[in-house]
C-alpha cells in the first residue's frame, strides 16, 4: 500500500486527466519541453498533522498542501489561457471529486499565484494553484484513509 498522500497526489492527476490536453505530470522535476505546453504539474509541497485522539494508535488529522502548476506559452493573451486552464482545474477538483472520494475529507483552493515572463521565445505564463487537502489516518497506518 502507498501513503495516503501519494494516493491523493495520484487522485489529483486522475481528476485532472483531461486538463491541458492531457499533459498532466506528477512530481516532475525536469523542465517541460515546448511541445508539452500547455502543461499541468502536480506535486505535494508540504503537510501538517496533529493528533486527533487519545490512546494508541492515535488518529492523525492531516492537511497536505498540493500544488497544481499550469504553464502555457502564447503570443497573445497568455493570461487568458492561464485563467481558462485554472477554471478547468478548479472544476475538476471541486468537491465532491470522484477521484478523491474515500481519501480526502475536504479539498480547498487556498491561493493562486500567476506569473508572466517575456524572457523566452514566446510570452510564457504560469499559474500555481495551492490546495489544502484534509485527510485522516491512524498514526500506525498512514496508507489507509479514515
Amino acid at each position, binding site marked *: 500500500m502507498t501513503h495516503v498522500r501519494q494516493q491523493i497526489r495520484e487522485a489529483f492527476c486522475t481528476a485532472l486527466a483531461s486538463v491541458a490536453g492531457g499533459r498532466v505530470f506528477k512530481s516532475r522535476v525536469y*523542465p*517541460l*519541453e*515546448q511541445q508539452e*505546453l500547455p502543461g499541468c*504539474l502536480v506535486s505535494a509541497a508540504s503537510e501538517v498533522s496533529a493528533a486527533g485522539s487519545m490512546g494508541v494508535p492515535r488518529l492523525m488529522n492531516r492537511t497536505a498542501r498540493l500544488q497544481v*502548476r499550469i*504553464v502555457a*506559452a502564447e*503570443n497573445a493573451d497568455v493570461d487568458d489561457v492561464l485563467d481558462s486552464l485554472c477554471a478547468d482545474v478548479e472544476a475538476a477538483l471541486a468537491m465532491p471529486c470522484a477521484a478523491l472520494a474515500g481519501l480526502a475529507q475536504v479539498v480547498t483552493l487556498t491561493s493562486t499565484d500567476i*506569473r508572466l*515572463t*517575456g*524572457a*523566452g*521565445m*514566446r*510570452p*510564457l*505564463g*504560469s499559474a500555481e494553484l495551492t490546495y489544502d487537502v484534509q485527510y485522516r489516518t491512524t498514526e500506525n497506518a498512514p496508507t489507509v484513509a479514515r
Partner: protein
Amino acid sequence: MAFEAIEARVNAAAIRKLANATATLNDQLAIRGVFVQSYIEPAGGMVEDAAPVFRCLAADALTLEQGDELGIDAQTIGVTGDYAARGIEPDGTGIVLVRLEKL
C-alpha cells in the same frame, strides 16, 4: 583618427565578419547581424526555452520599433522565421541588441 571613428570602423567590421543572419524589417529593410538564441529555463526552471536576440549596427536599425516584424534568415545555424521586436537595447557604442519574440 578620432576614437569614435575607430569605434565605428570596429563595429562595422565586427558585424560584417561575424554576422550569421539577415533580418528583414517589415518586409523591406535588410539588416545584417548576429542572431543568437541561448538556452534558458524561465518560469522558475519549469520550461525548456530559448531567448532569441539579434545584434546589429545601431545605425542600421534607426527606424526599428517595438512590435516591428523581423524576418530572420540564419540558415547557417538552421533558423528561419518571423519574429517581433520586443526589446531594443542600444549599448551606447553603436551596437543594438534586439530581443525577439517568435511569431
